[in-house]
């Protein structure tokens, strides 16, 4: 059954073979324009009835998002990863929510985290974030540290509300001063000891 399916996929959709990642996991990369056709074929002819997940990976250096639609057979023994690359600027992708109900929330999640516009999904409102106007946070260009430095402040009165660099410098200087003071005290003690011995010998 699998061999027939792989041959049909290669013949109709892909330029290379279906990758067998494990005996229960297959993957194929296809053009976005053929995505719906392949998902429908797998669902209607080969029993891949459940959409398990839609995942997104940001390949910023290559200028695209890798969207992976993960489908499972009715007996849940086999999983198919269908991967398609979409442009990462002003990304617009057709929704799957009319065919798979669960796609609505999965797309809403990706819309918030990557800014992908799923055309036809009427529920792309905020999910975890609130009044978010910045770069969608899971895009690679979103720098967490920079965001925290520019937008957040430490609450007054917290013990950790200090400039760590300045504090480290101050502690080092204190440590160095203490060390030098100890060295000086030791030298003075030795000089004093010698003087005492000389006085003793003189007697």
């Amino acid at each position: 059954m699998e061999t027939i399916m792989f041959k049909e996929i290669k013949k109709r959709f892909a330029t290379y073979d279906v990758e067998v990642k494990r005996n229960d996991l297959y993957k194929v990369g296809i053009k976005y324009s053929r995505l719906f056709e392949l998902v429908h074929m797998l669902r209607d002819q080969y029993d891949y009835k459940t959409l398990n997940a839609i995942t997104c990976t940001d390949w910023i250096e290559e200028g695209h998002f890798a969207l992976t639609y993960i489908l499972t057979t009715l007996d849940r023994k086999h999983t198919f990863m269908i991967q398609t690359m979409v442009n990462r600027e002003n990304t617009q992708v057709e929704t799957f929510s009319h065919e798979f109900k669960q796609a609505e929330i999965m797309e809403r999640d990706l819309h918030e985290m990557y800014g992908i516009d799923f055309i036809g999904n009427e529920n792309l409102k905020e999910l975890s974030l609130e009044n978010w106007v910045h770069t969608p946070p899971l895009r690679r260009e979103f720098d967490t540290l920079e965001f925290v430095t520019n937008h957040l402040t430490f609450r007054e009165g917290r013990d950790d509300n200090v400039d760590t660099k300045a504090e480290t410098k101050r502690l080092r200087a204190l440590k160095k001063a203490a060390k030098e003071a100890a060295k000086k005290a030791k030298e003075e003690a030795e000089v004093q000891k010698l003087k005492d011995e000389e006085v003793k010998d003189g007697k």
Partner: protein
Amino acid sequence: MENKHITIFHGPQHPGITGNMSIELDLLGETIQKATTHVGYLHRGFEKLIERRTVIQAFTIVCRICVPEPDPNEANFAMAVEELAGLEVTPRAQYIRVMVLELSRLAGQFLWMAGQSGSIGLYAVGQWAIADRDLILDLFEELTGGRVYHMYIYPGGVRRDLPEGFLEKVSSLLVYMKKRLKDYDDIFINNASFKNRAIGVGVISKEEAIANGYVGQVLRGCDIKADVRKDAPYLVYDELEFEVPTQTAGDVYARALVRRDEMDQSLHILEQVVEKMPEGEVMIKMPTHRKFKLPKDDTWVKVESARGEFAYYMAGDGSEKIRRMQVRGPSLVHAYTLLEDLLVGAELSDVALIMNSLGICPPEIER
């Protein structure tokens, strides 16, 4: 007196909610007309943090993705990294992983029992369940050093070998649990107070369950024999005997019966693991962590958690950092697609009851 339309928030500060989330309920009298799930109270951005860390640095935070059940996260993470890096763990490490995962499933079911019974006011059950779960946490503490977060299932094996006499302690606990679970049947599962509240409530149809990607007890409560351990066996589950319990009614009570039967199956698996535990190393030789690079490739791994299928998508990019790790637990789809539908037409007093039966864990939605 005429019923009025009102809107109330069930949570996030509510004993009947399973974590930091909230359900906005539009009510006519006490009947729910519309339910809207809200999350966003504890967003911690683990998936973002992981992209900026080395593989081993990322390992330390994955267990925190779901508080009641950290071990399936550790197992998924380790399995994904091993698959991408082409590593194979030893048989002893695999058996130990199964032992940890089954103990974790048991602990998860006790926690569910506490929540589910509490949702209808049977507080004694909750106190018993938390006390019995603590016996499992004691074992975890001895094995891993941590009671809740274990950081034990490590890429390449497990972090340390079993302490001396540990398997005997597991065996003693199994003997106790077998006897003890019968008490829960009397006080909870066969209790008329629970049956009257749970039977016929929160009914899910078989067709809907399959089509919408529901998992775990939601599927098994609708007479679908779905279990990752059987359907796509990982670790050494194919060497162990166990049944996948199912029920036909699709309601809250059916899901409770499935969970109760699963506890027996977990005990049965643990007995076999204790008996068959092989000798040998528990950790393979790993590259030094700063030189540990994942190839440019991706994978999808999954385990059966106490609440159902728990999966990770992971992609490497040839560097020492993980390019992308996406978590797919039961909660996102159950809390939105399922819960928002299931609550329409239900009574206000059944919200906590229905929600608890679905295995929703908000930290896993806001990962």
